């Protein structure tokens, strides 16, 4: 069984990596596969999102299958499928546990987190993405590990290319080219919060040194949720009995701390790794279909903790209502095209970073506090780093929860995500009478949203010069940010995007527009 379990873990981990790599432009306008499948299987995400939007979302239906499976197989999902769990098991082979006491430190914490997350989601404060294992994993990979892998690899092969003799390059260059074809991204990406994403994931791994599956036992709300259904799972572990000696091999080896002093197996915790079965010297421990559950040794939440977590989940969202952001949204908060109105967007967004991973222009960045305390890691367009590619619709295709609607290319061409403004104090034709028009050159709307007037101005040399000065046609600008991105000024661009006039909030209209929503 252990072999089968490891095989399953290996296969699903490999599948996860393949899906992660496939979350990228594939040469056509439509993706055939992406890692969003993982989030659609996640009942914790599903429950939080559905509570947040207060309706049933068909997109998240697959998660029901996982819940039903946990009624049969308990938390086999955690032991056999979860890529985070597999990575933790691999980490524990490197990071060895010093503390021999195998008791779970905070056995009820996952349930407290679960209750808090559910209540706060219901009240409009979506935090599921901060602690969901898949969100943590994909986010850490997308925003730290994957770009880091590329940066180090490119650095190495740039060194070999520039500084080593031709004969070595004949070996290294083909290797580089294979790596580029198979695993490296097509372009180096750069991210805000790269350190935070990195440390959150590395931290989880390092805690393997405190105890095995520390995250799963002490934090993971998804595991806690599956545990609720697993308590009376059809597959149950037969723990020790009166024939047992005093070896305690099973309980001291249990990576989930699911076996108590009396050698009873708590199915709410057991992830069916079968290590106890293999290690039991007398072959007493066993698993099988059972309707005679061993005494319920699972941890349950005290009434006090439950009420405390629930109250915190209700109170915190109300504080959000008195933040300045509730009155004056941050104008730099440009959401991806197809993003729902901010409230529903945040309720659905699970911070999985897939849109950020797939974004072809490195335009989408994880927000820090621009969207509030509950908006950290949500995607925001940072035009100076990357612009929204006119013909690309990938972010809407990978969003697992529909926080970003999937747009057709025609819809995308008209989707206004923000608006461009000129800073005439720095824009060269205005400020210095110098020709430029790089913004106009790149403006992608077929009928250009950036145009220019031919004017005569006093140049720096004290002579009149004729120069083209750009301006924005409000009705045509879609806020893609290519103008801000390509502006040749150093540092801050002389043309920049704000969220003004964006489609999803028709009440924030431009001064030139009428009160009717923008219609393209």
């Amino acid at each position, binding site marked *: 069984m252990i072999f089968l379990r490891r095989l399953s873990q290996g296969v699903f981990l490999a599948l996860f990596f393949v899906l992660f790599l496939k979350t990228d432009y594939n040469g056509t306008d439509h993706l055939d596969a992406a890692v969003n499948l993982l989030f659609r299987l996640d009942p914790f995400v599903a429950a939080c999102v559905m509570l947040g939007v207060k309706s049933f979302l068909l997109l998240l239906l697959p998660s029901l299958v996982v819940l039903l499976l946990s009624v049969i197989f308990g938390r086999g999902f955690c032991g056999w499928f979860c890529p985070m769990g597999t990575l933790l098991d691999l980490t524990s082979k490197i990071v060895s546990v010093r503390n021999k006491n195998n008791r779970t430190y905070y056995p009820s914490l996952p349930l407290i987190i679960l209750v808090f997350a559910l209540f706060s989601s219901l009240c409009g404060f979506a935090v599921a993405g901060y602690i969901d294992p898949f969100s943590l994993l994909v986010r850490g990979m997308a925003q730290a590990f994957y770009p880091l892998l590329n940066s180090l690899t490119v650095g190495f092969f740039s060194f070999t290319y520039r500084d080593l003799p031709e004969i070595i390059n004949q070996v290294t260059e083909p290797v580089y080219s294979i790596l580029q074809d198979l695993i490296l991204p097509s372009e180096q990406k750069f991210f805000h919060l790269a350190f935070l994403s990195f440390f959150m994931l590395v931290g989880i791994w390092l805690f393997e040194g405190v105890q095995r599956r520390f995250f799963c036992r002490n934090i993971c709300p998804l595991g806690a949720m599956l545990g609720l259904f697993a308590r009376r799972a059809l597959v149950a572990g037969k723990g020790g009995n009166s024939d047992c000696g005093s070896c305690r091999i099973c309980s001291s080896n249990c990576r989930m701390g699911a076996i108590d002093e009396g050698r009873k197996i708590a199915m709410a915790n057991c992830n069916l790794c079968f290590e106890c079965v293999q290690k039991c010297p007398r072959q007493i421990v066993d698993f099988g279909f059972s309707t005679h559950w061993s005494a319920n040794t699972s941890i349950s939440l005290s009434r006090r903790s439950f009420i405390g977590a629930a109250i915190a989940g209700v109170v915190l969202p109300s504080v959000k209502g008195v933040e300045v952001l509730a009155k004056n949204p941050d104008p730099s908060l440009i959401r991806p095209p197809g993003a729902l109105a901010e409230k529903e967007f945040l309720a659905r967004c699970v911070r999985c970073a897939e849109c950020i991973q797939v974004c*072809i222009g490195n335009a989408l960045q994880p927000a820090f506090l621009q969207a509030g305390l509950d908006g950290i890691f949500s995607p925001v367009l940072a035009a100076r780093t990357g612009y929204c590619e006119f013909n690309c619709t990938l972010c809407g295709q990978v969003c697992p929860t529909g926080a970003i609607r999937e747009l057709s290319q025609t819809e995308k061409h008209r989707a206004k995500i923000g608006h461009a403004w000129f800073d005439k104090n720095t824009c060269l034709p205005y400020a210095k009478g110098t020709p430029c028009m790089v913004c106009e050159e790149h403006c992608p709307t077929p009928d250009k949203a950036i145009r220019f007037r031919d004017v005569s101005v006093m140049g720096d040399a004290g002579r009149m010069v004729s120069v083209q000065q750009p301006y924005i046609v409000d009705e045509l600008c879609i806020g893609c940010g290519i103008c801000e991105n390509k502006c040749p000024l150093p540092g801050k661009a002389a043309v920049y995007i704000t969220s003004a006039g964006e489609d999803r909030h028709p009440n924030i209209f431009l001064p030139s527009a009428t009160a009717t929503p923008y219609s393209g």
Partner: protein
Amino acid sequence: MNRRQFVRDVLLWSAGLSLGVPCFDVGGISAASAPPLLGVASGKDYSLLVEKAIEVIGGIKGFVKSGDRVVIKPNIGWDRTPELGANTHPLVVRRLAELALDAGASGIQVFDNTCNEKRRCYASSGIIDELEKIGDKRIRWEHIDPRKFVPVDISAGKSLKRWEIYQDALTADCYINVPVAKHHGLSRLSLGLKNAMGVIGGNRGKLHQNIGQDLADLATVVKPQLIVIDATRMLLRNGPQGGRVEDVKIADTVIATADPVAADAYATTLFGLRPEEIDSTVAAYKMGLGEIDLQRIQIRTVQV
């Protein structure tokens, strides 16, 4: 310093063996040489246009020698499909590659430093599809490799003194410039000289501040052996990236010449403009890089 020495310097620099920035001296060029030849083919069969336009100026073997490493540099700058006229037409690029193969090219590289996302540009342009139809291993389309930009001193430059230029464009035995003729807001037209923007790195927008002279300066170091201008579908408005078929004029014309100034000068007339109206053409002419006067160009037209 001659071309051979220049190529050696570029290679040494990029191999890390030399700290001296490569430099190309254009002192020897004079406008007083024989009138340049310019072939113009028009008709519906774009492949044939390429062939004929080159044939009337002496045929491809006059440019590509057997064993040459050839670079074909189309405009693949934008994520636009061929009918929109923002990129060089894929059939033009393909035929050119086939001709170079026939002439005995040992390898052909096709690349451009794109403005939109590189993979989308290459795919939408249709150029990859056409090149792969040839099915010859000697043809390699590739994305720009940032490691291959080398700083080059532009000693003859009046405005642009030094810039990062793509090594492969400088060291090819035969560099073929294949721009698409189209509208451009700032420079009015984007033609052959403007297409050199696709082999340079750095903050390219900087060149817009003195686009005419900068392009002419660039032309003193980026020196194609052959220029083939694709004027099959000319974008007349909202250039250089366009996006509307209504803005495209079907002109069904291909121009071929070895003179970078003559190429742009003639192509300008297709838009109903005079060559003198394009700053870069004038600047390049003044630097002695070629002929701007249509009367002094041997124009050989052929109807296909």
